[in-house]
């Protein structure tokens, strides 16, 4: 039994190292002098050379690009949590006609692949004169059906007695929503916030289509453009990848519990 467990541990260790290796190798390449001409780094670094990072920030206005990504991802998260929790209140706490039908229509939008919408959505936003603005990226993602569903589930878990007590104290819907229910939704909001931020931070196709000029672009779009310019400057390309990965890495380390739980729950009906 003990030998079996040790063997399992070793297999897992080797697999984990293999899974992590691409991260190590990209970081290593980004700090290896000479990788710009396609020279492979040694397995262990001889010296840490951060000139590729300097090049990235000097030549590409990378701060602006990181700023764009942070700004868009943060606003998207705030929008989606606000619209999601407001809608969740209606579905969880209010009585009105067609409630279930409307909820189903919301859920049905999850089935529509974004790809079907992309051409007409582009035309629509061009008609509104919003191409190459932050709004073009933000508007289509203001409401997330997935978020509404998640928040409604969480709100249904909160006992109705809490609402009743507040109502007796004279609280209206807005007060009950903001000072009774929302403070009790911490874990659900955290889970959704991570997914929302991650989705926006990593999204590529739509920002690629609507953010035309270099100074408006988000990280993934700028990385793709970088690849076009610096085809073989692997140290700069790896530096760019590392910079784009680090923020998500930090969020993941702190919010691992929420991310893993959120995904695990989605698989259990």
């Amino acid at each position, binding site marked *: 039994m003990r030998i079996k467990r040790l063997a399992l541990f070793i297999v897992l260790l080797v697999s984990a190292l293999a899974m992590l290796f691409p991260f190590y190798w990209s970081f290593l390449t980004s700090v290896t002098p000479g990788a710009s001409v396609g020279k492979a780094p040694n397995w262990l670094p001889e010296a840490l050379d951060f000139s590729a990072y300097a090049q990235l920030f000097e030549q590409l206005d990378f701060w602006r690009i990181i700023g764009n990504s942070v700004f868009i991802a943060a606003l998207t998260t705030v929008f989606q949590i606000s619209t999601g929790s407001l809608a969740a209140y209606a579905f969880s706490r209010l009585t009105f006609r067609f409630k279930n039908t409307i909820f189903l229509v919301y859920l049905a939008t999850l089935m529509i*692949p974004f790809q079907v919408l992309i051409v007409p959505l582009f035309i629509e936003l061009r008609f509104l004169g919003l191409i190459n603005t932050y709004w073009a990226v933000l508007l289509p993602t203001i409401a997330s059906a997935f978020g509404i569903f998640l928040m409604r589930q969480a709100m249904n878990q909160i006992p109705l007695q809490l609402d009743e007590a507040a109502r007796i104290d004279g609280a209206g819907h807005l007060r009950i929503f903001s000072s009774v229910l929302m403070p009790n939704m911490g874990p659900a909001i955290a889970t959704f916030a991570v997914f929302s931020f991650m989705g926006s931070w990593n999204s590529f196709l739509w920002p690629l289509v609507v953010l035309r000029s270099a100074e408006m672009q988000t990280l993934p779009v700028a990385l793709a453009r970088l690849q076009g310019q610096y085809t073989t400057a692997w140290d700069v390309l790896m530096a760019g990848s590392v910079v784009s990965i680090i923020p998500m890495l930090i969020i993941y380390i702190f919010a691992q519990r929420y991310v893993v739980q959120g995904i695990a729950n989605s698989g259990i009906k």
Partner: protein
Amino acid sequence: MSAKNSVSRRPRSDAWVAVAFLAPSAIPMLLFVFVPMFGALLVSASSWNLIGDFEFIGIDNYIKLLTSEKTLLVFGNSFYYVAGYLPTVFLIGLLFALALNTKVKGRFAFRAAFFLPVVTSWIAVSIVWRWLLNPSNGVVNTILESVGIDGPGWWTDPVWAMPAIIIASSWKDIGFVTIILLAGLQNINQDHIEAAMLDGANWFKRLFSVVLPMLSPSIFFVFVISMINGIQVFDQVYAMTGGGPGDSTRVVMQQIYDLSFRYGKAGEAAALSWLLFIVIMLVTAFQNYGQRKWVHYAD
């Protein structure tokens, strides 16, 4: 007292309150999901090129697409991707999940390590794997060379470009599949497994006759999600090969992107996106129909 009674006795309707709470989500959904959804139908029935006049041509775009070899090629490539990607992430994900569903030391750290690639962006992953799979000086070919194998040209070679994309994509998604299957495994009632153990079933027997059937709802979920995402593959193709070399990795989404934003053929692109949507619906319906034969839901 009276306030409480009025709440519970009278069937109330909060229609106007509901309108206020739903408007912030309903208006954007209407404008940016339903309007373009039907807009796509309209555009797909036109010869519009994004700048000229809007001219109706009925189902001509669809006929053109359905009779073109290019359509067959791009759908074939998307399905080729799924055929390589799905079994890879499923089998490796299942092995990882089985290994983590034990009392092995450090299992939480291992789980975190397997999951890490999931939170990165497809573009970063693609760039990293273009370097790992670089035909000259790429670390994979260097390792292969050290054991006497002459590594292929990967993304520069029409034959190996799609496998290169499949390897990179699988690496990114294995952790996702692992978490789903692990959650499913942890939900299995241990009594069934112990009963099988008492019957003298060995590990393989238990796996195939107890564990996998009981895991089938999670497996089904993984298949459906991977299939839907796989048919729509785009980011990693765009960043790793751009559809090349030749048309060897030209998938449906790459074609839609090029048609609309490179050649300005909005009508044809919209028609192709509707075809893609229909194919996704058909595949999902087919999977849903097939699940009755092999998916067992616990009572």
